[in-house]
């Protein structure tokens, strides 16, 4: 009898607690009347809360001092100084999870966050069509601070994805031309073989041939090769392990997988004529063993391990790539890596590469009423980039910089309390990347020309290792070789149906030609098929979009002229 009672009690307790858990939920804080927050002397009183969505990369570091996503040095700063509390209510790990969560939030099962960084053009489009995001044309004109307006004026094309019928539904996240790619070369190999760094295609070929055949590491074995890159996803990775320089040597501005405005009409780079010669060259090099044997199976991040291991002599990537491959200098005695500009095209022109103007766009919940507060906060985040105001050196002392013996230090290992990879303080705010106005590396260029480091940005640039600094300087000197993709709109209807097939076909044919499994003439067949299987329709739609996007002068509406 007794035991029976106990059982029933257990059961009912579980039932009850389930009910309590369920009950707690439905009390949504919608109808709670809060007093209106007023902006007084740059601070909101009482504090207002801005909810945000965030894609956070766990790789980018850890929180310290027991802090967390919604309670850290930057959120506390915002609350104290501006009366703005930032609260992350939607968090996604990688890009696809984040997009999934945004889509689920669109089902209306919960309130959409106030500020939405969106990184996918399809999702941008869907958000606009859903009517859940705010039209901000007026808000930009009214509330955007002047110094930020100056930045947005420089990059009108970043508004293309968010304009619909002459109305603006979002804005680029911190527009700024990214750094360009450099060639990282094993200088000790060059010296040993008495070669100089290549500047043309012929010289490049000589160097990679020597790196493959003349035993640059001096171990008596033919176990090295010239050039490592990734051919897994695209022959234009845009950041690390990139072979796009070889293609551009023959095609100029027509880069694979990229749309370029060619006399007023957007054309697709992968079908441009020069690609055939480029593929022929790569095919020849592959057969002679100058290239990574497994290039088609290695992603951008994998293709660099051959370089770090000391097997490959040249890799192309953004200047910070040196940070990932510099271990070769630890693994192999005497190894030295030096950055050089990318080579010249066959006709003597420069080679081009993909540039990014922004990483995603900000969009806002249609019920969000505090655009002024957003711009106040956003403007403050720019302080670090401009080297003004509170964030002169960085965002927080002891986090991204420290002052040791009256000297500003950016290497976390030399702090008063040494740190391992810490969550970037700026990234505790809205987005994956902090605002920058440094372009492809102007601060490094200035430093190389003798400018005294006095702002946070200059000091930080000055604190980096020489190889990286040289890389950024080269990147800035060659900034004209950076070209953004001219098509940044949502996938067109035909694209949604067949783009995947077309790019798969492209990747397969290119790889097969390089591997020597298909004759070089397969490229002509590919171009023909590309046009027939929907490429022509896509081109037409892309151009329609482009004309549409550049038709209305939204810049004037936003007072950004």
């Amino acid at each position, binding site marked *: 009898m007794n*035991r029976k009672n106990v059982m029933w009690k257990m059961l009912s307790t579980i039932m009850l607690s389930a009910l309590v858990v369920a009950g707690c*939920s439905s009390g949504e804080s919608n109808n709670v009347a809060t007093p209106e927050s007023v902006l007084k002397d740059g601070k909101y009183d009482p504090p207002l809360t801005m909810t945000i969505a965030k894609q956070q990369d766990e790789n980018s570091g850890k929180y310290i001092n027991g802090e967390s996503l919604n309670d850290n040095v930057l959120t506390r700063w915002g609350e104290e100084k501006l009366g703005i509390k930032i609260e992350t209510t939607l968090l996604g790990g990688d890009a696809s999870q984040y997009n999934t969560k945004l889509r689920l939030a669109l089902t209306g099962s919960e309130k959409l966050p106030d500020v939405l960084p969106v990184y996918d053009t399809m999702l941008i489009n869907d958000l606009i069509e859903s009517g859940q995001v705010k039209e901000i044309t007026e808000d930009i004109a009214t509330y955007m601070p002047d110094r930020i307006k100056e930045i947005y004026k420089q990059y009108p094309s970043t508004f293309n994805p968010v304009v619909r019928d002459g109305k603006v539904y979002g804005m680029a996240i911190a527009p700024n031309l*990214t750094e360009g790619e450099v060639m990282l070369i094993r200088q000790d190999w060059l010296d040993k073989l008495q070669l100089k760094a290549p500047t043309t295609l012929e010289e490049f070929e000589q160097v990679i041939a020597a790196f493959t055949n003349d035993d640059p590491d001096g171990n008596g074995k033919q176990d090295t090769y010239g050039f490592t890159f990734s051919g897994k996803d695209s022959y234009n990775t845009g950041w690390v392990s990139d072979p796009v320089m070889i293609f551009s040597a023959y095609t100029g501005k027509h880069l694979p997988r990229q749309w370029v405005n060619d006399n007023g009409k957007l054309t697709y780079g992968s079908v441009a004529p020069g690609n055939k010669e480029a593929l022929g060259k790569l095919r020849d090099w592959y057969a002679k063993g100058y290239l990574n044997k497994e290039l088609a199976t290695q992603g951008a991040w994998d293709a660099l391990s051959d370089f770090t291991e000391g097997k490959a002599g040249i890799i192309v990537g953004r200047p910070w790539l040196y940070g990932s491959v510099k271990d070769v200098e630890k693994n192999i005695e005497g190894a030295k890596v030096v950055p050089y500009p990318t080579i010249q095209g066959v006709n003597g022109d420069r080679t081009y590469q993909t540039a990014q103007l922004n990483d995603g766009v900000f969009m806002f919940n249609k019920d969000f009423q505090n655009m002024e507060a957003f711009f106040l906060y956003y403007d403050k985040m720019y302080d670090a980039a401009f080297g003004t105001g509170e964030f002169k050196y960085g965002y927080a002392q002891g986090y991204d910089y420290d002052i040791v013996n009256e000297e500003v230090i950016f290497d976390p290992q030399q702090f008063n309390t040494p740190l391992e990879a810490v969550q970037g303080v700026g990234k505790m705010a809205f987005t994956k990347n902090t605002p920058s106005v440094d372009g492809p590396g102007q601060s490094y260029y200035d430093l190389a020309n003798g400018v005294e480091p006095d702002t946070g940005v200059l000091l930080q640039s000055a604190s980096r290792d020489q190889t990286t600094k040289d890389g950024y300087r080269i990147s800035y000197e060659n900034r004209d070789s950076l070209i953004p993709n001219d098509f940044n709109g949502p996938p067109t209807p035909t694209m949604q149906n067949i783009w995947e097939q077309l790019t798969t076909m492209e990747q397969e044919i290119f790889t097969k030609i390089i591997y020597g499994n298909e004759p070089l003439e397969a490229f002509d067949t590919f171009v023909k098929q590309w046009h027939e299987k929907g490429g022509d329709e896509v081109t037409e739609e892309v151009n329609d979009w482009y004309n549409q996007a550049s038709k209305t002068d939204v810049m004037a509406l936003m007072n950004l002229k």
Partner: protein
Amino acid sequence: MYHKTTGYRVFSVFNYAFMILAGLVCFLPLLHLLAQSLSSKAAVSGNLVSFWPVGFNTDAYVKTFSNSNFISSMWTSILRTVLGTSISMFILTCAGYALSKEFRGRNALMWFFIFTMLFSGGLIPSYILVTGLGLKDTIWALVLPGAFGAYNLILLVNFFKTIPKALEEAAFIDGASFFAILSKIYLPLSLPGIATVSLFIMVGHWNSWFDGILYMSDASKYPLASFLQTVVVQSNMQNMAMSQSEVEAMSEQSIKAAQIFVSTLPIIMVYPFLQRYFVKGIVLGAVKE
């Protein structure tokens, strides 16, 4: 005397060789991971480590255990596994015991459960339901939605059915209640089945990552599998303006190896204790009526 024939010996040699090979295939990746986790960062990123640490050090483990997110995720995972397994087993044994009896509407009820096994609502309805119930950001979002699995129910029902009816009747005559019969007779007798189903549920909870990412809006609430998913799966995003320390953090393979290794250990350690029930449990559960 069949084992003295040549044919048998040849078979034995092949059999042993094959089993050793199969064992190695399972074991070597783990060994590789262990070697990576104990190697220096430079050697790992240069792909120089195979099955023996190069540049031995335990930095990766020190860093792993000093990472508060890792520890809190570990705790969430343990809590989730213990809570989830207990709740599931409680519901499943109650339901399984009842459904192993003959009563009117039993088949209809059973069909009702099996239906959920064949057709699920899908991601969006489940998400709306869970957020609507206010389970978001609580451990219940991870534990409750999967608490009642029809597949496990079938296993248990079949198990309970193998226990002779006479036993129950005898207990009734001695004055036992249903709950007494369940706890004193059925549960001890069906230990293999219980252990098997528990193991299924445990491993399921330990390994599942998607729900963690879906229902938690703060990374410190992620269970271990979700945490690892975000750490190990490299983002192919183009990262603008990465700082030196970020680049270095991204390529720290040895830490990832250590984290994977540490997270695999607990569930590997559960196996030996439950393994002895496992074979019997599967065999018995496999007999359907």
